[in-house]
């Protein structure tokens, strides 16, 4: 019996392996990883068996069939999939193929005779405890729920799997890198984020300076700044990106529930806001009451001086 890990994101893949190791210890499950890149890395992060997919597979629908075979071969009890968009598209498709239950975006995981997880529901305002019976169970996990562990099990092995090009009715026309703001916010360590306190698009330059002074932070924003004003591509919040940086600096953000539930997993939250009563301040660790047009440049200076 085994726990099978898959993620198209390398960092998240190792985190899931860390989680799989934790689960497998109590339940005596073998840790299996399916990957199309760096199989050695999987061994170094705890996988006992690595299925290395080689070939032209790219689209999720082409992977599902291969995966089903490997899950059966290794008698998978639990399949952990990284909650990237591709992962979240893949997991339910696989579950459907296996006639299995699927739990998405889980922030905690326990395995006994059933799988028990916690996940956010109702726009992020309610935490639900859910169980899933049957075997296997497919679970998707966002970044930073688990920690990667560097450990190489004895006798770990890599099985090469040649994947042919499946008949697909879907044709990839092109892939376009996202413009500014299309950075990987979900995996960012530090995020500087702006709300309607920012008066003009040009003022993003000031925010970029702060991001730079912090050693290359990512830039996020609230929904109005992105969806209504179009200043940045992606926003942070329940309908946008859920983030979990170690530092989140909110500049001129009022603190709508939808935004707050997107930043809940941040380690430290700083709010810079001239309105002392802003809801954002109550959901922050450190609050600077002041005009962001004065505070942000001063902060840049202080960081550069240090």
């Amino acid at each position: 019996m085994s726990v099978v890990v898959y993620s198209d994101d390398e960092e998240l893949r190792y985190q899931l392996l860390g989680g799989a190791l934790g689960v497998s210890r109590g339940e005596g499950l073998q840790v299996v990883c399916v990957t199309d890149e760096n199989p050695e890395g999987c061994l170094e992060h705890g996988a006992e068996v690595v299925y290395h997919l080689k070939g032209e597979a790219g689209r999720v629908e082409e992977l599902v069939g291969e995966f089903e075979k490997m899950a059966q071969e290794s008698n998978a009890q639990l399949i952990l999939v990284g909650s990237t968009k591709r992962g979240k598209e893949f997991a339910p498709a696989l579950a459907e193929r296996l006639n299995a239950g699927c739990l998405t975006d889980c922030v905690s995981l326990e395995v006994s005779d059933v799988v028990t997880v916690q996940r956010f529901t109702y726009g992020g305002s309610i935490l639900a405890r859910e169980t899933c019976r049957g075997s296997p169970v497919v679970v998707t996990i966002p970044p930073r729920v688990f920690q990667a562990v560097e450990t190489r099990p004895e006798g770990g092995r890599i099985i090469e799997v040649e994947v042919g090009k499946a008949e697909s009715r879907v044709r990839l026309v092109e892939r376009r890198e996202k413009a500014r703001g299309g950075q990987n916010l979900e995996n960012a360590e530090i995020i500087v984020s702006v709300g309607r306190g920012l008066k003009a698009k040009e003022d993003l330059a000031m925010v970029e300076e702060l991001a730079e002074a912090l050693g290359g932070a990512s830039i996020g924003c609230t929904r109005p700044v992105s969806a209504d004003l179009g200043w940045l591509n992606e926003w942070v919040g329940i309908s946008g990106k859920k983030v979990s940086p170690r530092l989140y600096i909110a500049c001129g953000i009022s603190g709508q529930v939808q935004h707050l539930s997107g930043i809940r997993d941040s380690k430290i939250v700083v709010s810079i806001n001239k309105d002392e009563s802003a809801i954002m301040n109550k959901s922050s660790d450190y609050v600077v009451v002041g005009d962001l047009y004065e505070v942000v440049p001063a902060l840049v200076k202080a960081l550069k001086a240090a």
Partner: protein
Amino acid sequence: MRQVVLLKDIPDLNEVSGLDLEADLRQQVSKTRINELDKRALEAALRTKEKNGGEVVVLSLGDDKTKTAILEALAMGADEAYIVESTQARRLDSNATSKVLAAALRKLDPVDLVLCGEMALDSMNSQLGPRLGVSLGIPCISYVKEYDVEGGVLTATRDLDQYDEVVEVSLPAVVSVVREINEPRIPSLMNIMRARKKPQTVWSIEELGLEISNLEQQSRVEIQGLERPVTSRKQVKIEAETIEETVAKLVEKLREEGVI
């Protein structure tokens, strides 16, 4: 061209904060509304119909509240509504729900395009589109923020994590949409009045050739409890004589926390 839009009616999220988490949330609200992203899927279908002709059918698995909520879809311009009615509807998990909707979609055949929102904001499962793709044996294109249909071929832009992906697929297909796809129209009073006269068909689970006991068997996920998460932030106000001193203090705090 026949498009079917899958709609889920859910409690208003602003109302949820006042509800008793020990009891069924859906029972506690007087009415439900169509999930926002599903409404955008409907808007997309209506725009395609305006361009390409054909019909737009809405389909939902629900209860009495669903019948009222779905009127909004008819007022927006859907031609016809089908409701699979079951008191058990909302206890079924995504695996069982997809079986029901797949059966209903087969009964509605021929269907060229199945549309839904990428996520329902109540359960936040995000499973239906990909599951239906597999069970119907047709491609599912997820996270679509823009698309066009021409000559039986759908060209869609998908919003993925680090890039946009443009794909082409010959219909039939399932499409799940993201928020950016459009702004849903607000129906006129006249259309709201007309909505009640549009055809609504109610099917039972049995009429789809399914058995509720069998579906319950296949429904493996159960909600054990709900709670309101508490965010405990320090809420320390950083103050000093000058801005320079204030930010210096902040930098010091962030160093102590080990985050910079």
